[in-house]
């Protein structure tokens, strides 16, 4: 069941999220169309991660509606599975399965979730490992790779499921500086290929060059949403200005 191309791929309508008494998301409204690249930034604790984690149901939203490519996220396992099949995610801490080789990391979900036969799963795995430029690491274990390589594997692993949407939750925050660009290069490559992406990051260079829109969040709200040039050159809100002055100061 696929909605037409004109409809937004992701719709969040009046979404609230509470952790106990703490309101992590306040009335979030967001639409993302096919092929759009969105960068989300904001101070820590502002709800950026929580927002994208609601999109693939790693967090359950408390109120409002989330509709992914025509499928509304409800409590039903069927709906959650349908959404997760379309949404890939990359985490700050890579989260590669430590007890599996790189190739197996890329194959396991294909085999279990998509029921892809082993040989074909391996071919797909190798295709995406080549795409992130580390096919020679296929038979190593994650611990034997550098942080940058592990994160590229994590991206390849998500791509193996052929998602419509890719979510990135601070993908370069846990990396040593010299490894950041190798991961950003893969993400830029992906963006150029037309992947729909939501990226939580503090890499403002990436935001400026790749994003169609930049979203600034603070205290659980979307404060400002603009094209990168407007966002960086003429921010409207005081909170955005303050944040940008802090993050661009160094």
């Amino acid at each position, binding site marked *: 069941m696929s909605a037409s191309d004109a409809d937004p791929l992701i719709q969040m309508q009046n979404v609230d999220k509470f952790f106990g008494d703490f309101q992590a998301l306040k009335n979030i409204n967001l639409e993302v169309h096919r092929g759009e690249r969105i960068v989300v930034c904001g101070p820590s604790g502002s709800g950026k991660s929580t927002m994208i984690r609601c999109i*693939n*149901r*790693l967090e359950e939203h408390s109120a409002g509606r989330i509709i992914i490519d025509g499928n509304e996220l409800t409590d039903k396992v069927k709906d959650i*599975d349908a959404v*997760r*099949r379309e*949404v*890939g*995610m990359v*985490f700050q*801490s890579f*989260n*590669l*399965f*430590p*007890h*599996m080789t790189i190739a197996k990391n890329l194959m*396991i*979900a294909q085999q*279990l*979730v998509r029921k892809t036969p082993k040989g074909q799963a391996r071919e797909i795995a190798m295709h995406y490992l080549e795409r992130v430029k580390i096919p020679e690491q296929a038979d*190593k*274990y*994650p*611990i*034997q790779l550098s942080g940058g390589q592990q994160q590229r594997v*994590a991206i390849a*692993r*998500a791509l193996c*499921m052929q998602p419509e949407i890719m979510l990135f939750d601070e993908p370069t925050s846990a990396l040593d500086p010299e490894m950041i660009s190798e991961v950003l290069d893969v993400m830029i490559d992906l963006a150029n290929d037309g992947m729909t992406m939501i990226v939580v990051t503090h890499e403002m260079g990436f935001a400026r060059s790749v994003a169609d829109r930049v979203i600034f969040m603070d205290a659980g709200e979307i404060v400002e949403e603009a094209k990168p040039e407007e966002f960086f050159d003429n921010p409207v809100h005081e909170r955005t200005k303050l944040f940008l002055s802090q993050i661009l100061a160094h």
Partner: protein
Amino acid sequence: MSFDLYLIVESVPLMLSGIGITLKLLVISAFLGLLLAILLLLMRISGKWYLDWPAQVYIYVFRGTPILVQIFIVYYGFPQFEFIRDSIFWPILREPAGCAIVALSLNTGAYVSEILRGGVLGVGKGLLEAGSALGMSARQKFIYITTPIAVRLALPAYSNDVISLLKSTALASTITIADMTGIARTIVAETYAPYEIFISMAIIYMAFTWVLQKSFGLIEGYLGRYAKREA
């Protein structure tokens, strides 16, 4: 005080003749205890109170009472109940060895389930989230992510428990079983030479422990191969 070497040379083979029974108690109890532990673990992590609570009570009772008392209750206590004498378990509970195995299994199961739970809790939350994000079901995540990692994490503590169980099998000698310790006690009763006999017996248990320790070390090395930086 004299130390009779000849007596040691003479009695060690006798004690070793009980190794079969000691091994039988150890292997069967460890196996049944592990099955019980897995069941208790699944109850504990089911997230359902009506499974979790009974498991917690069970674990509390069996960790909260001496194993010797548990052996006595099974051996002396159970036969008093007619429904036990009439049950299909009677052929097992009629035999001292059966009683020892039942008591040891019930006891070790309680400890091992908590060891396994420690392993399960040690599996990084992020890994399970990665599994969810890839669309894996709860069952698939448990089988392919949680279990292999938890087993690796729990192994050192588990080997500790198996070694401890080896020593607990010596308690079976209190209910007439002729395991290594049982035989040693008989020899002591005949020779009045506790020093020689019990020291040689201690050395036999230590040798046994060494074998167990080495075996678990090999398994740990194999299961932990992914945790080494050099291939």
